[in-house]
């Protein structure tokens, strides 16, 4: 027997050369190279998946480093997908790597997902989760789902088996805007996404190699504080079917950010067309964030003080918010829309990072 880097798994009963060959022939698209994506990638790569692509338009920031274990201090400000791929290309030469330094959208999802055998959702927001779910249902692609909140995690496998379920069978529609805070607001110990991400990698390997029983029609719950696992049975839900786009045409028309966050998002190109008109153009970054942006009509209201300065927007009919990555501007838009339900308020998708690329 030729000893190679997979020797210890091919000698496993029930896996063998056959299981290894299936992994080698398989391709996986990992959406999000953050707290979940990092451990997923580490173990899928080590297991010898043949082709792996990583989609992430975000850049590495200092607050990511407690859980996004592929990155270090020297990577701050760099794109996550590209940085992750660079790390792995040096480590394993037998895998075909593709970095996609963009966010997944209704425009690009079909083209990205189509070319892969299995999708991993390691994203960190509801718009992306519903978008990825719906695209995978339309393409009948196996989807490994995992998500976290504080000390708890959820894992499942969608679109696999004879009565396949998807995320909308569990939660047919997104929660209301601002219902669920994200990691930035609630905090997370890095080891939790490490555990959930490893479970996701395990499920992907099981689906692709045929080993064991994947978590299809099951939702696994994990609580790290009392180290408890619990499994819930899930079944196809008729109300979820009506919530999924009926066609790609229908999918392309959806505004997932609006449905989930109650905020209309614009690209920089769309935003540029509005400028010069009666529109307030607002930078909600804190003083000192790079690069500074100067132009006529630009208003600077740091997100940290926005709630005290809402009356500054009384006169404006249209308001355009932007920040570094598009996250805070979305919250700013939500906040302002609650105060002024009749104004047209937008957030610029991807923020300054999107402008740079």
């Amino acid at each position, binding site marked *: 027997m030729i000893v190679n880097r997979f020797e210890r798994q091919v000698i496993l009963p029930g896996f063998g050369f056959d299981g290894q060959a299936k992994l080698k022939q398989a391709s996986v698209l990992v959406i999000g190279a*953050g707290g979940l994506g990092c451990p997923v990638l580490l173990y899928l790569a080590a297991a010898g998946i043949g082709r792996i692509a990583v989609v992430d338009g975000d850049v590495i920031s200092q607050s990511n480093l407690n859980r996004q274990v592929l990155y270090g201090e020297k990577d701050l400000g760099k794109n996550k997908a590209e940085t992750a791929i660079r790390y792995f290309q040096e480590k394993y030469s037998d895998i075909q790597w593709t970095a996609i330094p963009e966010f997944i959208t209704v425009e690009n999802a079909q083209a990205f997902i189509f070319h892969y055998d299995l999708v991993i959702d390691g994203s960190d927001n509801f718009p992306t989760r519903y978008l990825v779910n719906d695209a995978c249902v339309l393409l009948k692609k196996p989807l490994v789902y995992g*998500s976290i909140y504080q000390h*708890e995690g959820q894992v499942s496998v969608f679109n696999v088996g004879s009565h396949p379920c998807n995320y909308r069978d569990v*939660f047919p529609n997104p929660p209301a805007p601002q219902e669920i805070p994200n990691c930035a607001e609630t905090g997370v110990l890095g080891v939790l*996404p490490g555990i959930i991400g490893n479970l996701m990698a395990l499920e992907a390997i099981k689906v692709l190699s045929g080993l064991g029983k994947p978590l299809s029609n099951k939702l696994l719950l994990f609580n790290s504080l009392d180290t408890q696992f*619990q499994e*819930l*049975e899930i079944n196809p839900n008729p109300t979820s079917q009506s919530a999924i786009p009926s066609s790609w045409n229908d999918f392309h028309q959806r505004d997932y950010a609006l449905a989930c966050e109650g905020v209309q998002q614009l690209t920089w190109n769309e935003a540029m067309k509005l400028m010069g008109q009666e529109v307030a153009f607002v930078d909600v970054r804190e003083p000192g964030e790079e690069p500074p942006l100067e132009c006529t009509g630009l208003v600077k209201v740091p997100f940290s003080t926005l709630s005290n300065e809402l009356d500054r927007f009384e006169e404006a009919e249209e308001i355009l918010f932007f920040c570094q990555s598009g996250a805070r501007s979305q919250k700013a838009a939500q906040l302002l829309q609650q105060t002024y339900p009749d104004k047209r308020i937008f957030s610029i998708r991807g923020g300054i990072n999107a402008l740079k690329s």
Partner: protein
Amino acid sequence: MPDRIRLKAFGMLAEKIGADSLEIENPGSSEVLRLQLLQQFPALQSLTFRMAVDRKLIQAETDISAGQEIALLPPFSGG
């Protein structure tokens, strides 16, 4: 044996209820339980959640019998 059930709350629901596990009198059905919870914990009114009876996610009003375990499940999006 008294007619009681076990409630298990996950994620933010546990925070709003103030406990992740609770023994309560059996309300008899999932819908009665839901209304009772919304009344007792008004903070739940603005939250999305699904219920599981004895570890099976339910899709419609379901009878609850003594000793069953009801899970209250919110969506998570973190990653």
